[in-house]
């Protein structure tokens, strides 16, 4: 294929400015790779989840209850639109694992031994299905098996209804119901301390007096049917049997968590690349404006030779598009690589049979279109200005820019500026827009770097507030069944236990109009010792004697505020229904909470001092004795140790955040380098004549470097506060985006975060300044002065 002369010129011109091309291309590439990384992960997760749900027949409606006879299952199965149903026995147990000091939790779920479940089928990774007549055979969740290095044939000791039994793992399984599985009361999944076990129906029912009954139901609906009506009917059917309220798939814990994650991926996948591409368009504009000014005589020649404006415009627009294309190629490759590395992180949280990473074609097309549009937009004004010049005028060099004393040059400042300082000042104020563009560009780099540090701070803040201010207990104990508060005395007698605070919480549906959520109402004692209501700033809030206090997010979901009424439909005991006034709203960080005065809660439940769990303070020296004792206590369904919970939280978050900060650091450096390097090259090409003249007049290299680098330093310093502001705004925007019902990050920008971001950018600016300075050292004085401009 023959390359036209104009395209040859394009290629050689770009090769000639390859440093700048690469610098801008890398900024573009950073944006593209973010876009590709986030959106490919989004698409990969979504596709994987969809096919998993489909293959394993994931349910549409889920309901738990106390106990119902099996005939009720037929009643539900006969409801209109119900296409498949599976009734189960589900119980939580304590696992007595030798390798752990503190008790681990297990969830036992019944499965038929002679067939596969019709809804929520399991994916059998290894081993075999359980066999009838062998009551101790179980399938274990893959996360648990992997975390403990177990194999089919290994045994797990579990306290089942007060009796220690050794369950034999015969197979390793995954379920669409537990892609995300978390122990109640924890922040992140901890596969070491929480496992799911699927066990023969008869064996499990026998242990819990559930023969001929069930306490859990999952069902599939005919395709395309909304679940609302079925849910209402199921709630009516199950109410006499202690129904805890049926929920649609949208509210199923695992599904809901993945959904939240996917939404975040999607909004990040758009927001961050957009910022990068905007910066790239900015510096492309500055770089091209200058490059085209240098091309004026060539533009004139082309016009004189008979090239039309459109052809010339297209030729120069191609400069930008080629740079964009370079960025696209590098960006897609980097994004695919990063994406495949990061999707591994999702395996820490989400368990899929296979989690395959692929870059969908639409993502490539989207990234390319967005980038080329940004490049063209960045180039447009520069190209238009250049092409518009009448041909005869282009033959003359561009008129010298009019310098004037800058408004900043007050007599006072003037006196303290040297010649170099004055030149820097005038140069910056001469092109205020260009200076502003550079300041904005570097500012964005500061902001991107800052975000990473802000989020580490946010997590520390969350830990601090949650574990040291709001919940000050060392251990949170969950009872198998609510029992008399006198159980506290038994707990207090355990070795190492220093103090006990009984806790009462009841399952309820909170409603306002048609908006509702299922959650636990927590009873707050008059003078809580361990667990307090605390807002994002760590301020404890006093529980009013009447009414309820809601998480702000819950109040928002229900669209209520202080003074409004909400309906509480308790799903335990006598199932009271009450309209209660909201007497407080707390801007907290985790989950959705409803708090009520403990006495009022007992009165509502028509009960005496009943506790559903307890909070313990330990003598740390005797922690392992305490945990050994708790493990074998039959009344204890689970015990969460702060130390262990914190450890697993930190491990997961650290892995996550370190990678994010590392990626941000690279991307921010790319931007900072790209912007500073380009600003320097543009100044150098504009002023090489002037600087060479100064050298001829006897200025030293150091002195002329000062003029050029002084300008860059001034721009960088000006960009720091701007960047801090952007960083704050961007962090606020991201905090807003990641707000979910699962968790809310507090917006907390520490001076440490700002300082690190500043240091990083100053470093990147220094490096690019030094690279340009090397060019100054090789400035050919004679040649520069000879060239006619």
């Amino acid at each position: 294929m023959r390359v036209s002369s104009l395209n040859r010129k394009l290629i050689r011109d770009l090769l000639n400015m390859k440093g700048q091309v690469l610098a801008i291309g890398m900024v573009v590439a950073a944006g593209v790779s973010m876009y590709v990384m986030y959106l490919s992960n989004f698409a990969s997760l979504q596709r994987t989840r969809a096919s998993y749900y489909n293959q394993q027949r994931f349910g549409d409606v889920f309901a738990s209850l106390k106990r119902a006879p099996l005939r009720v299952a037929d009643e539900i199965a006969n409801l209109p639109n119900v296409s498949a149903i599976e009734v189960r026995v589900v119980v939580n147990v304590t696992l007595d694992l030798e390798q752990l000091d503190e008790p681990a939790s297990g969830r036992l779920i019944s499965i038929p031994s002679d067939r596969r479940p019709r809804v929520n089928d399991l994916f059998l990774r290894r081993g075999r299905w359980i066999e009838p007549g062998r009551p101790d055979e179980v399938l274990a969740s893959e996360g648990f098996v992997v975390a403990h290095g177990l194999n089919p044939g290994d045994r797990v000791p579990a306290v089942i209804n007060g009796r220690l039994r050794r369950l034999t793992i015969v197979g390793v399984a995954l379920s669409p119901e537990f892609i995300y599985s978390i122990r109640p009361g924890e922040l992140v999944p901890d596969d070491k301390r929480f496992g799911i076990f699927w066990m023969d129906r008869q064996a499990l029912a026998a242990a819990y007096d559930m023969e001929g009954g069930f306490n859990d139901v999952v069902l599939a609906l005919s395709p395309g049917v909304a679940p609302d009506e079925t849910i209402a009917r199921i709630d009516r059917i199950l109410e006499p049997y202690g129904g805890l309220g049926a929920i649609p798939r949208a509210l199923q814990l695992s599904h809901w968590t993945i959904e939240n994650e996917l939404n975040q991926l999607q909004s990040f996948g758009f927001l961050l690349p957009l910022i990068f591409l905007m910066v790239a368009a900015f510096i492309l504009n500055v770089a091209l404006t200058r490059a085209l000014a240098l091309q004026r005589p060539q533009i004139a020649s082309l016009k004189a030779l008979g090239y039309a404006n459109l052809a010339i415009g297209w030729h120069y627009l191609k400069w930008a598009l080629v740079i964009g294309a370079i960025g696209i190629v590098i960006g897609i490759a980097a994004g695919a690589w990063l994406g495949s590395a990061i999707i591994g992180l999702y395996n820490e949280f989400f368990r899929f049979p296979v989690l395959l990473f692929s870059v969908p074609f639409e993502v490539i097309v989207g990234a390319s279109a967005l980038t080329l549009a940004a490049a063209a937009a960045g180039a447009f004004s520069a190209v238009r200005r250049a092409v518009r010049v009448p041909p005869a005028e282009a033959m003359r060099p561009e008129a010298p820019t009019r310098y004037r004393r800058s408004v900043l040059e007050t007599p006072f400042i003037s006196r303290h500026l040297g010649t170099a300082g004055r030149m820097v000042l005038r140069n910056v104020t001469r092109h205020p827009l260009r200076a502003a563009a550079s300041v904005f560009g570097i500012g964005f780099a500061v902001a991107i770097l800052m975000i990473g540090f802000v989020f580490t701070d946010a997590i520390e803040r969350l830990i601090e507030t949650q574990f040291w201010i709001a919940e000050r207990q060392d251990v949170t104990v969950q009872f198998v069944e609510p029992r008399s508060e006198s159980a506290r005395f038994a707990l207090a007698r355990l070795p190492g236990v220093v103090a006990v605070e009984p806790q009462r919480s009841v399952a309820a549906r909170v409603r306002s109009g048609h908006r509702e959520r299922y959650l636990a109402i927590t009873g707050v004692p008059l003078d809580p010792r361990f667990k307090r209501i605390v807002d994002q700033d760590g301020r404890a809030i006093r529980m009013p004697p009447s009414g309820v206090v809601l998480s702000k997010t819950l109040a928002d979901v229900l669209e209520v505020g202080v003074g409004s009424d909400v309906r509480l439909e308790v799903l335990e005991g006598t199932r009271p229904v009450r309209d209660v006034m909201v007497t407080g709203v707390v801007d907290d960080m985790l989950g959705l909470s409803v708090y009520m005065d403990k006495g009022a809660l007992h009165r509502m439940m028509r009960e005496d001092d009943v506790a559903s769990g307890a909070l313990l303070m330990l003598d740390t020296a005797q922690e392992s004795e305490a945990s050994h004792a708790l493990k074998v206590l039959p009344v204890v369904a689970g015990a969460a140790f702060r130390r262990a919970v914190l450890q697993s939280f930190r491990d997961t978050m650290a892995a996550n955040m370190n990678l994010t900060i590392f990626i941000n650091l690279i991307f921010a450096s790319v931007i900072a380098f790209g912007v500073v390097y380009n600003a320097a090259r543009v100044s150098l090409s504009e002023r090489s004549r002037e600087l060479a003249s100064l050298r001829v007049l006897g200025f030293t290299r150091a002195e002329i470097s000062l003029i050029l680098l002084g300008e860059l330093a001034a721009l960088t310093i000006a960009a720091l506060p701007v960047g801090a502001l952007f960083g704050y705004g961007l962090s606020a925007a991201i905090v807003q985006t990641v707000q979910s019902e699962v968790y809310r990050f507090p917006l907390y920008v520490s001076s440490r975060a700002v300082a690190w971001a500043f240091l990083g950018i100053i470093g990147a600016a220094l490096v690019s300044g030094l690279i340009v300075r090397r060019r100054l050292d090789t400035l050919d004085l004679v040649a520069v002065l000879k060239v006619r401009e």
Partner: protein
Amino acid sequence: MPAALFDIRELTKIYRMGEVEVHALRQVNLTLDEGQFIVLLGPSGSGKSTLLNIIGGLDVPTSGRVFYRGSELTQADEAELTAYRRQHVGFVFQFYNLIPSLTATENVALVTEISDRPMAPDDALRLVQLDQRGAHFPAQLSGGEQQRVAIARAIAKQPAVLLCDEPTGALDISTGIIVLEALASVNAELGTTTVVITHNAAIAQMADSVIRLADGQVTSVEARTAKLAPRELSW
């Protein structure tokens, strides 16, 4: 009697430089004949370049009319002027204006790629005796060589008219003569009407017609019969 290539009537051009008005051309009337070697003489600021730019379709007059082979250039729009430059006019500038990133051959090809009946770039370079230097970039050529590449580039489209603005202005005598020889041979061999702007009166001795300008007006038009060869010029 040769046919008129350009017919120029009452041509006026006024530039506005800030608050001052500069009268570059004041009601110039002129005809330029086909096939001739024409020299425009005059001091700096006499309006020669403006005249050249206007008849070359690079600039538009403030008032007055220019006819090229009977059609009015001054009525042409931007696209028509571009087409006119592309098909009919070759330009040679004082500072060569070669594209630095393209070799000599590619600089010529820049033109041959967009014209209707171009000669091969190598043939154009042979006419200016540079066929051996085709692969060189402008920076690797001397000033005289660069100017000859510019001439080759200008004539490769086989234009009706070659417009040269101070083609030897940046060159020493001996190199200047080589460039003028190239121009003379193009005029003789291809019959291309050639208009050369200069303030060097010696060059007038090789012209068919010498037009003198001063202060935006034509002061004399001289038809010459005894043309000298460039080598015979006394500088």
